[in-house]
């Protein structure tokens, strides 16, 4: 019941902020943005793999949302509406992305390895052992490298599926592709990440159905 009440209060607060923002109150909009900014930023960071670009891109999403908020009618949830803007902004960014040419092969600027320090990111646990920190840093670098080897569209599809939990159909609609393309992109993304992260075939915990049933 407490959870229910808390959710109702949050929804009412959000509704109130949306109404105020629709009248041009940017303070209300800033408060609204606070609820989702980390989620949008994280996606932008994994998409662009550059903290500066991620900030620019995520803030562009907010600016577009602010300009369009008067058209929000509340038929879908606010985040669903916002996500539509986000996907379009990301796809447009993909088109205008900085590109360079090297030895006949197109490389994307984000194709460079970036360290944690460069990303402006610090370990979530400051008291970690240096070895562990180094290991985690290497993992992040490998993940970023893996994401960089996907096309922007494949990367976006993977993030929308794995991080946002969107369905194949929702992604296909948002990115204007077929569900077959979505599945292919996901398969390629997981396989590429597996190669780069050095995950060996079968080297994992017991994820079998019987084991799950036992749990």
């Amino acid at each position, binding site marked *: 019941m407490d959870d229910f009440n808390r959710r109702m209060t949050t929804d009412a607060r959000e509704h109130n902020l949306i109404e105020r923002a629709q009248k041009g109150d940017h303070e209300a909009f800033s408060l609204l943005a606070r609820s989702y900014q980390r989620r949008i930023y994280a996606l932008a960071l994994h998409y662009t793999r550059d903290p500066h670009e991620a900030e620019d891109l995520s803030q562009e999403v907010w600016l577009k949302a602010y300009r369009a908020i*008067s058209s929000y009618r509340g038929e879908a949830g606010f985040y669903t509406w916002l996500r539509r803007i986000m996907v379009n902004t990301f796809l447009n960014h993909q*088109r*205008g992305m900085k590109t360079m040419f090297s030895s006949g092969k197109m490389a994307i600027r984000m194709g460079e390895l970036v360290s944690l320090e460069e990303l402006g990111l610090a370990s979530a646990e400051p008291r970690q052992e240096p070895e562990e920190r180094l290991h985690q840093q290497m993992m992040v670098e490998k993940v970023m490298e893996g994401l960089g080897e996907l096309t922007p569209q494949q990367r976006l599809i993977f993030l929308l*599926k794995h991080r946002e939990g969107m369905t194949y159909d929702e992604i296909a609609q948002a990115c204007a592709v077929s569900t077959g393309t979505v599945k292919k992109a996901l*398969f390629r993304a997981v396989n590429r990440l597996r190669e780069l992260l050095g995950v060996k075939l*079968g080297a*994992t915990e017991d*994820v*079998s159905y019987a084991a799950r049933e036992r749990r």
Partner: protein
Amino acid sequence: MHDCVKTREKLVDLVFDEMGSEARRRALIEIEGCHDCLAQYQSMAETLRVFDQAVETAAPNESYWPGYEARLRMRLENERPSLKQRLAGWIGAFGSLTARPLPLAAGVAMILLAVGLWWSWQRRQVVTPSPIAPEMANATPAPQSKLESHEKNAAVMPEPGAKSNERKVVRANIAKSNGGSLSVRREERDGKTVAIDVGSMGYDQPLITASLFTPETIKHFEKAQLMLRSFRNASATKGSAEIDLAYEKQLSQRLLYQNILLRRDAEMKGNLPTEEALGDLEPFLLDIANLPDKPSRDELDGIRERLRRKELIASLQISSAQPAALTYQNP
């Protein structure tokens, strides 16, 4: 009978939770029966787990967010509220008026009613015909055909200083006696200036160019169209299973660079149709330019299928067949 190929097609659905509970149960039981499929499934699940772990580690510090919020606020402050937002604000203000006590609302309604009555009374005064109206009506000429009107409106005016036989066009607005303006085009013909009333002829509109694409853009569309056709029709050479797309890739890279420049230029000039057309083309150029040296059949088919569905080659052909506009002016 277990089929590894078919089972592996289901792995993506399984790891990304796109199966119903019953289908999932059956798939898991089947996977358990095959060592290779189970290993594949486990490694995919493990990859996602490691990815999540790395992503959680890569979260920015708490100290990052106040700065982020401040920068966002600043950008929002610089953003002018849209017309819709301003309208919503005014309507909101009006709504708060009606929430006031009844006498105030009644007073506002009375004022509005009085203004309405006064305005309609004023209109009646204007519409009432004057005693000379019938005479005016008789004096009004009957409507004429456009051609006739054109001939009559062309009046020859002497211009002592003019000697050249070159045709000069001067536009001038002559104020009508009733306060309106009449558009007149003066043409110098054989040393005489001819004033032609073009206001009533209906063609003194701002000239709208037949095409929104510049010659450079049209040339770019032509090149892109040829490259895409070549890409679409490329097939494996005799004696080799691979398709040689080195030329298309190289050309695509050059075209992509040009496309970005043209699109940005169109964006700056507010030329939306050009921007959209170039924007549609760009993902294809990027995909072809980024193809590996030995692209798989699936990769090529994917791009070709998208090309076919978008009917891009046909639309490029139409765009490049249009007459060029020298410069685009935002109407």
